């Protein structure tokens, strides 16, 4: 074979090999072995079927004797929505050898619902695991005797507890929201049913994850419920059950665990609410009651438990867990038009944040317990100035860490409950963390997350399964 033939043959072989390689390379998909992760691989069900519930069908009457007292803690965060007791009753700041003075205790269904107190009566929405029913239970504050209960049959399963809300109580009415968004309005004195509303059915609302956490509001005789679904918020006449107004919800913002906070700014009363989707302000009165005055989708998280902290100068502080962090915003009014501007927004490790409890606003400062994903300050009580919520004025230090339990101020003392039922008394201070004392109240306690209620020196607190009445009178 001469060189020319050899050259041509080599060229042919190289060409064929090259073309083969190009065809192989173009036809080969290096990602063919990868599995595409798409929705639906968990075989998720169609969702829970709405149960037919006869709200108020159960009534148990046990007793009518109780000691009438002078003070009340009638709803979530107390009379003034600030979680600060204004009672003149002097409370202990040190636990003696007799403490904790547990006056009475009662076993409850697993949950985190808190008590409201009205002039010697304690109201709590419990889930009775044996009877499988939501029950509003009424106890005598001084001795724990159960007076009556009213509720309805409902099948639910444990989902990090069952009950989570606090009733709203006035002279005339008691208003509750159950785990599956059933609203029940009762006559306060008799426990008679006024009316009921199945929010999930009527407004096609999505029941929040781990069940409803929104505490209901009674304002000027109106039940205020943030429904999500077909309406964002509704007002219902407590006396008749008649709907007074509904706020449209074109953006389909959803119900969160946050509660509605009344706020008056620029001469206008409004309801501030952190829906899953946006932070909103809704006109509370006037001809346009129920109108959306302002909103911002800058605050848009899927799980929000704390409620808005509204400050007199128009600033609103929002915080949430699950990595959401916090936001400080400023409300402005111009000729009756409202707008909201975000001042700062940051992740939980960069400043004051809370996962479950609403921060306290006291003496121009904010106090809260940083969540577990809050970096070095995790689980510490932190005090910040609203001008810079990312710069702690002080922290309680790594030796004083807390959980997701409640904290509030009464008799100028700061009470903090740890997850395991340990109660701490500290001094509310703007310079540093000063701890007075600490005592274990609930033995083997866990998930003690329900907000406090206090009246006449009796503190109502609970862990996941036990509610206790603690005498804090000095």
């Amino acid at each position, binding site marked *: 074979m001469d060189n020319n033939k050899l050259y041509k043959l080599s060229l042919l072989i190289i060409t064929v090999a090259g073309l083969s390689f190009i065809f192989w390379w173009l036809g080969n998909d290096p990602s063919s072995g990868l*599995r*595409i*992760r*798409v*929705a*639906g*691989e*968990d*075989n*998720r*069900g169609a*969702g*829970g079927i709405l149960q037919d519930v006869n709200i108020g069908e159960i009534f148990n009457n046990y007793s009518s004797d109780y000691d009438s007292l002078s003070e009340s803690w009638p709803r979530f965060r107390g009379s003034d929505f600030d979680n600060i007791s204004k009672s003149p009753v002097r409370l202990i700041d040190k636990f003696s050898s007799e403490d904790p003075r547990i006056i009475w205790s009662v076993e409850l269904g697993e949950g985190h619902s808190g008590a409201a107190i009205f002039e010697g009566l304690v109201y709590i929405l419990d889930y009775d695991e044996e009877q499988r029913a939501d029950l509003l239970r009424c106890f005598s504050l001084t001795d724990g005797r159960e007076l009556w209960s009213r509720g309805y049959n409902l099948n639910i*399963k444990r*989902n*990090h507890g069952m009950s989570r809300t606090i009733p709203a109580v006035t002279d005339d009415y008691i208003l509750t929201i159950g785990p599956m968004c059933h609203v029940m309005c009762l006559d306060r004195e008799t426990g008679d049913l006024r009316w009921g509303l199945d929010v999930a059915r009527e407004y096609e609302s999505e029941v929040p*994850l*781990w069940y409803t956490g929104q505490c209901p509001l009674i304002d000027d005789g109106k039940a205020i419920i943030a429904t999500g679904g077909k309406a964002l918020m509704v007002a219902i006449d407590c006396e008749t059950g008649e709907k007074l107004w509904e706020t449209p919800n074109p953006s389909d913002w959803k119900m969160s665990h946050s509660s509605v906070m009344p706020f008056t700014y620029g001469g206008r009363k409004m309801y501030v609410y952190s829906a899953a989707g946006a932070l909103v302000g809704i006109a509370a009165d006037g001809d346009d009651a129920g109108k959306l005055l302002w909103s911002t989708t800058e605050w848009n*998280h*899927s*799980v929000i438990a704390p409620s808005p902290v509204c400050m007199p100068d128009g600033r609103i502080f929002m915080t949430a*867990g*699950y*990595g*959401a962090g916090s936001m400080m915003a400023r409300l402005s009014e111009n000729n009756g038009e409202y707008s909201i501007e975000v001042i700062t927004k940051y992740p939980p490790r960069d400043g004051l944040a809370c996962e479950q409890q609403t921060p306290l606003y006291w003496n121009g400062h904010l106090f809260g317990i940083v*969540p*577990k*994903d809050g970096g070095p300050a995790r689980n510490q009580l932190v005090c910040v100035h609203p001008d810079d919520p990312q710069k702690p004025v002080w922290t309680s230090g790594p030796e004083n860490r807390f959980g997701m339990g409640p904290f509030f101020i009464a008799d100028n003392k700061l009470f903090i409950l740890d997850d395991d039922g340990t109660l701490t008394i500290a001094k509310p201070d703007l310079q540093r963390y000063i701890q007075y004392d600490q005592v274990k109240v609930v033995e083997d306690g866990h998930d003690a997350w329900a907000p406090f209620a206090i009246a006449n020196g009796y503190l109502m607190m609970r862990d996941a399964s036990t509610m206790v009445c603690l005498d804090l009178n000095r």
Partner: protein
Amino acid sequence: MESKSKSKNRREFIQSGVRLSLALALGSVSGLALSRSIKDDYVWQIDPFECTQCGRCATDCVMTPSAVKCVHAYDLCGYCDLCGGYFKPDANELTTAAENQLCPTAAIERKFIEEPYFEYIINEDLCIGCAKCVKGCTSFGNGSLHLQIIHDICLNCNDCSIARVCPSDAIKRVKATEAYNIKGDFTENPES
């Protein structure tokens, strides 16, 4: 007669010898196995209560992928729909779509059980020990997901490379007979 008797004795002697040899061999093997099982050998293991989910187990182990894997203490799990160990914070939707999942290798399988419960199963072959799920579960859940060194993968290096870089000294030598610190069963490491 005498010859038969001699033959029988020889046979019995051989049989006895074989029996004795077998018994000795069996005894030796058993003794060796017993000594192995009760010998105070040590292996490396993670104390899940000390772990800060820094991510170095994925990058500093001499094995590729790491011998550290996520394990699941089912008795601690809440079986939540929104699982902080499975979903990214503020996930668009609670679905199995890739954009919602925290795990970079899809090593967690999510299965619907019944309303409102979901089960989360770790695929050890896919897990690289990055601890992203552990961080999410610890921060937002019950902490049922946690890291452990898997001993059929671990080379048990005398100088464990991840123990050297662990910022919280969570990796310690434990007795080989108690090689795992599984949460739920394990509440306190006796040597810590």
